[in-house]
């Protein structure tokens, strides 16, 4: 065990058992998987992406490139989980990734011996030919060899949800600057949200022993946490990562509600995706300790110097028996001192600087740490690190070391500042990019702004807290700054040990080495964006948080340009990976989108209806009866019942719009191609609406109930679109018209009955004195009255099926009762409920256009409706519909088809070709839009668009359908297959 005997923020009273690769271990509450593994001397935790090199824990935070594991098992198995962010829980099961047959002995680690050919651009260069081999050979082989964890193969059993939050000031990160910013804004009365990806607030203060106000940092942290949780206007959100910044002060956040539990608590989601809207935000996300590039810098046991400190101080773990620190900056020394003070044996500090500050030298002496100034680590050895080779002016020397804490300086965690395209600027004194332009409303404090010392963090956090609160309208004064001895640190820019031994890694996760940067340079991929894509630098799941900087610096050295001129690639959200399940939230499976049942849904279900989704609606598609073997048999029975007697269908899904006002007639004349101002009260009319470009938008019937009161119906699909269009016309085009709209789609259930017996059925449900005789309610009549003994109703004599028909509208709550009443009244006639399929068959038999024809590419003339267009008025789309191409005789227009061999089946989507013509686009004459088996005619019939249209009635063409292997002769015919004169409607 490498657990120190005392210290740390772990709860030694709460031991937790867990397994890694099937072996059992113990840790404590407060551990991460990474700290618990290190405490159990597990230093090899994974294999790298490309070369399968053994890797250990590098960091102690969300930037972790190496320690990726599969967490949990079965349906909850989650690949590529950073062990440094996985909180330990009782029974945690983790498995290493990308190794076979075992982590310790991995056959594909042989890849690394071929690193000389597997370098940058390897895939581009190697797999160019023959192309046929790509899918069969290369890709499967690469996919097996490269890669990370395996996704679960079962559906995720956990739930996820979305939530919304609003605040004056959002503080991103709860370290020293974030605490001061939140305290300052919170005390001023602003609504504050303080979000931190960690379990506990404090950031680096949880890992440091630096005195604050002459006491251990824990005392300050306890005060700050207590005050923040006592302020009613402050909301602290731990385990919450702000992963994106969006327009208008909107921030995306992921709260890991149940990730620290084996399964989420009952009725709790696993994760919650927050949309936070903040008037102001302060980014206090700290900085990353970046690696130095040298041969063997990826060996398990090499970690960042600050991670060494964190494991020692926060988790009371010594990550190896003998620690050496290799750095170029003061901050790494204080990490070494804290680690040593916590009980880690730190034997040496190797600093590339010839003369480190005297205070640090004194500190090292006091702790009996040997200092090698002006030294560089040039090699490492051991499967897990056992020794390092150091080059000094005097020569080389080998030191025993199980841990090497490396630090090339701090890289501000400024990703969020560049999500709006803001380019960070290079600060040579800090050897770091610092924020320049930030998204509107976002400012930066602390280490994220390059203010690395504790004192600077406190000061800038408080100052930005004041500024943010003031911008949000609150008078604020900075919170008093805690006293700390931590002063600005110095460093000497240093990136890459020249002439070291073995592969020197820049990007650990994507196995990009210094040599790859050199290849990119040599081959001309020098601009940072090209460098990134050619080498994959920074493109792994860690997005190069710790690695990018050294890559840019090495390229800058090679080109001779400065780092500032070389620049940096920009960051994009999400800051850390976000599960798609979290983004979907509630909207999955049955709740993927709302399901809208019709008013008669329950009744139809009890009748055994098969339902179909039409948009969000669920409609009865057909009503199979026992003994019927397929849908066609059912639909055929339903059609025959309507044509011979009477049938019933729920048409409530049509859009229904109430129009009232003195100008409704004028208005309708302007939005329909035909005239409605002259429509008599008590009558309905079929209307066609165009878009302004002259193409048909929608059709439907509109009835006039009173001089100043009309009711419009739209197709189911276009209900919302038509309403929006009408509002556009009224608000934007003709704001002076006196027309008031109201959607009544939901208010009225509408049941259609059709068939020669429909009047007899209807007559039995209407209340006196309503007269539904042929004279009382003629074809296209519309009346208001009562049905079923007092229920108000609107009755329209309309027909889509071609039979005598009525649509009866009643308030939705009565829809089912009306249906039952009609079924009872129609029982003597064998009234048959029918669904959308039978409706579709009958409209095709009648040659009516529907959704398949109203494609948004068809004009009224194309649809055979050109004669409806009034020439006496202007209307939307009139001028553009007059363009010559619409009148071209060769334009494909609406017409009917039947197979020459009546036994053959038609297929919608088939294209028409002249008989004998080769099937090429030049010979294309149109296509079949709708087909049905006609029970009335006992053969397949079709509707479609054919060049020349009606002029070709009687001709034969080829219906060619290569997708489904169809190629038959069809005869062009009138689209009115059944009762073309409409006599049945008027009986």
């Amino acid at each position: 065990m490498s657990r120190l005997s005392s210290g740390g923020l772990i709860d030694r009273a709460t031991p937790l058992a867990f397994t890694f690769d099937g072996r059992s271990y113990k840790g404590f509450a407060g551990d991460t998987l990474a700290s618990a593994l290190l405490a159990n001397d597990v230093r090899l935790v994974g294999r790298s992406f490309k070369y399968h090199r053994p890797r250990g824990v590098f960091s102690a935070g969300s930037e972790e490139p190496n320690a990726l594991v599969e967490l949990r098992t079965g349906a909850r198995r989650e690949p590529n989980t950073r062990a440094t962010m996985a909180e330990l829980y009782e029974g945690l099961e983790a498995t290493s990734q990308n190794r076979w047959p075992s982590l310790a002995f991995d056959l594909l680690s042989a890849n690394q011996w071929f690193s000389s050919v597997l370098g940058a651009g390897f895939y581009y260069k190697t797999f160019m030919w023959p192309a046929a081999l790509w899918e069969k050979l290369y890709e499967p082989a690469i996919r097996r060899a490269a890669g990370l964890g395996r996704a679960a193969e079962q559906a995720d059993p956990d739930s996820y949800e979305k939530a919304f939050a609003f605040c004056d000031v959002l503080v991103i990160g709860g370290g020293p600057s974030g605490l001061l910013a939140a305290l300052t804004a919170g005390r001023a009365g602003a609504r504050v949200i303080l979000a931190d990806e960690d379990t506990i607030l404090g950031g680096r203060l949880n890992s440091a022993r630096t005195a604050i106000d002459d006491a251990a940092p824990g005392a300050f942290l306890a005060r700050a946490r207590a005050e923040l949780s006592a302020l009613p206007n402050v909301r602290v959100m731990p385990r919450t990562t702000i992963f994106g910044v969006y327009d208008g002060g909107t921030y995306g956040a992921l709260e890991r509600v149940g990730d620290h539990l084996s399964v989420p608590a009952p009725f709790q989601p696993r994760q919650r995706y927050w949309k936070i809207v903040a008037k102001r935000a302060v980014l206090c996300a700290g900085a990353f300790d970046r690696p130095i590039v040298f041969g063997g810098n990826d060996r398990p046991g090499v970690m960042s110097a600050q991670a060494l400190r964190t494991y020692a101080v926060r988790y009371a773990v010594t990550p190896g028996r003998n620690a050496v620190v290799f750095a170029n900056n003061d901050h790494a020394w204080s990490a070494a001192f804290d680690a040593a003070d916590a009980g880690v044996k730190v034997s040496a500090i190797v600093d590339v600087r010839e003369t480190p500050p005297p205070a640090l030298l004194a500190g090292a002496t006091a702790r009996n740490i040997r200092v090698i100034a002006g030294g560089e680590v040039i090699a490492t050895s051991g499967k897990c690190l056992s020794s390092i080779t150091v080059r000094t002016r005097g020569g080389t020397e080998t030191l025993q070391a199980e841990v090497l804490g490396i630090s090339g300086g701090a890289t501000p965690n400024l990703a969020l500042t560049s999500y709006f395209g803001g380019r960070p600027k290079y600060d040579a004194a800090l050897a770091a990019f610092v924020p320049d332009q930030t998204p509107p409303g976002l400012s930066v404090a602390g280490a994220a702004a390059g203010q690395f010392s504790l004192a600077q963090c406190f000061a800038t956090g408080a100052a930005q807290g004041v500024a943010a609160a003031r911008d949000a309208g609150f008078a604020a004064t900075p919170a008093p700054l805690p006293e700390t001895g931590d002063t600005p640190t110095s460093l000497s820019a240093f990136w890459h040990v020249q002439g070291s031994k073995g592969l020197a890694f820049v990007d650990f996760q994507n196995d990009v080495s210094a040599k790859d940067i050199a290849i990119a340079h040599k081959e001309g991929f020098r601009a940072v964006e090209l460098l990134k894509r050619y080498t994959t630098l920074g493109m792994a799941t860690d997005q190069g948080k710790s690695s990018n900087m050294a890559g840019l610096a090495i390229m800058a050295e090679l080109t001779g340009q400065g780092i500032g001129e070389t620049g940096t690639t920009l960051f994009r959200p999400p800051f850390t990976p976000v599960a798609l399940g979290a983004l979907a939230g509630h909207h999955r499976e049955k709740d993927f989108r709302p399901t809208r049942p019709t008013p008669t849904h329950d009744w139809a279900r009890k009748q055994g209806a098969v339902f179909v989704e039409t948009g969000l609606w669920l409609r009865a598609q057909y009503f199979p009866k026992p003994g019927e073997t397929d849908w066609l048999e059912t639909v055929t029975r339903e059609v025959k019942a309507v044509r011979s007697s009477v049938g019933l269908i729920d048409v409530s899904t049509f859009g229904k719009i109430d129009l009232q006002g003195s100008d409704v007639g004028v208005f309708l004349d302007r939005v329909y191609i035909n005239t409605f101002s002259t429509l008599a009260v008590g009558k309905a009319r079929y209307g066609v609406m165009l878009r302004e470009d002259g193409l048909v938008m929608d059709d439907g019937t509109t009835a006039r109930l009173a001089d100043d009161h009309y009711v419009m119906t739209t197709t189911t699909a276009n209900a919302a679109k038509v309403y929006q269009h009408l509002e556009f016309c009224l608000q934007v085009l003709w704001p002076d018209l006196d027309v008031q709209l109201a959607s009544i789609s939901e208010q009225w259930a509408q049941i259609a009955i059709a068939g020669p017996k429909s009047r007899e059925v209807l007559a039995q449900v209407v209340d006196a004195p309503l007269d539904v005789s042929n004279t009382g309610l003629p074809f296209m009549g519309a009346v208001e009255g009562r049905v079923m003994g007092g229920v108000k109703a609107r009755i329209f004599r309309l027909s889509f099926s071609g039979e005598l028909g009525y649509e009866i509208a009643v308030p939705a709550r009565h829809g089912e009762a009306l249906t039952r009443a009609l079924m009872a009244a129609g029982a003597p006639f064998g009234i048959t409920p029918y669904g959308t399929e039978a409706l579709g068959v009958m409209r095709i038999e009648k040659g009516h256009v529907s959704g398949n024809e109203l494609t948004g590419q068809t004009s009224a003339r194309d649809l055979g409706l050109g004669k409806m267009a009034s020439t006496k008025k202007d209307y939307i789309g009139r001028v553009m519909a007059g363009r010559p191409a619409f009148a071209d005789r060769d334009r494909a227009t609406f017409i009917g088809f039947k197979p020459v061999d009546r036994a053959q089946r038609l297929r919608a989507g088939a294209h028409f070709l002249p008989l004998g013509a080769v099937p090429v686009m030049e010979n294309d004459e149109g296509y079949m839009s709708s087909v049905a088996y006609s029970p009335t005619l006992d053969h397949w019939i079709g509707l479609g668009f054919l060049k020349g249209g009606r002029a070709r009635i009687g001709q034969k063409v080829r219906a060619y359908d290569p997708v489904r292997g169809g190629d038959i002769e069809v005869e062009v015919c009138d689209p009115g297959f059944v009762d073309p004169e409409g006599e049945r409607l008027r009986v």
Partner: protein
Amino acid sequence: MSELLAEIPASALVPEGHYGPRTPAPGVVAAQLSQLALATVAVRPNALDLVAELALEKLGLALPHGPRTASAGDLTLVGTGPRRFLAIGEGITGDPLLERLGHAFGKTAALTDQSDGQMVIQLSGPRTRDTLAKLVPIDLDPSVFKAGDAAATLVALIPVLIWQADPAPIYRFAVPRSFTPAFLRALVGAGAEFGLQLTGTGRG
């Protein structure tokens, strides 16, 4: 999807009952209200001042300015857009409501019965705001959205009208009839964490 809802058809109202952990008192009480009549009131052009006078005179009601509510006795008007209101009458049906509004406003406003088109769902209980935070994309903090405030917005892809009926707080939603099953699913999924009592939707 919450496991709670896995067995309930997406097309059916979520049955009344208790959802979530058993606590001494439910965190959220949701009730689908009946005995309400609803109508849209669309004021004709240039008639708003007149309608405001008529509302005061005939209904004893100050017409709400903007997205707010105004109540007098059993009648509430909710502002839903410029010159547009949703009228809600408690304890009556659509026809008498329309009659009453017609009597008050005459030809100055278009009236349309919506009593069957919108379901009204009421939320109360100590965890109401925590539940609403998972549903409503607007700021319902009491410093921003107060009793008498209203908003038309989108909840779980469903167009709704929400208003705060009481500082307690009590909120009400008007939800299009066909969207009510989907709305209840989202509501129960969000509120179950706090213990949600649902009434008024039947036994399923």
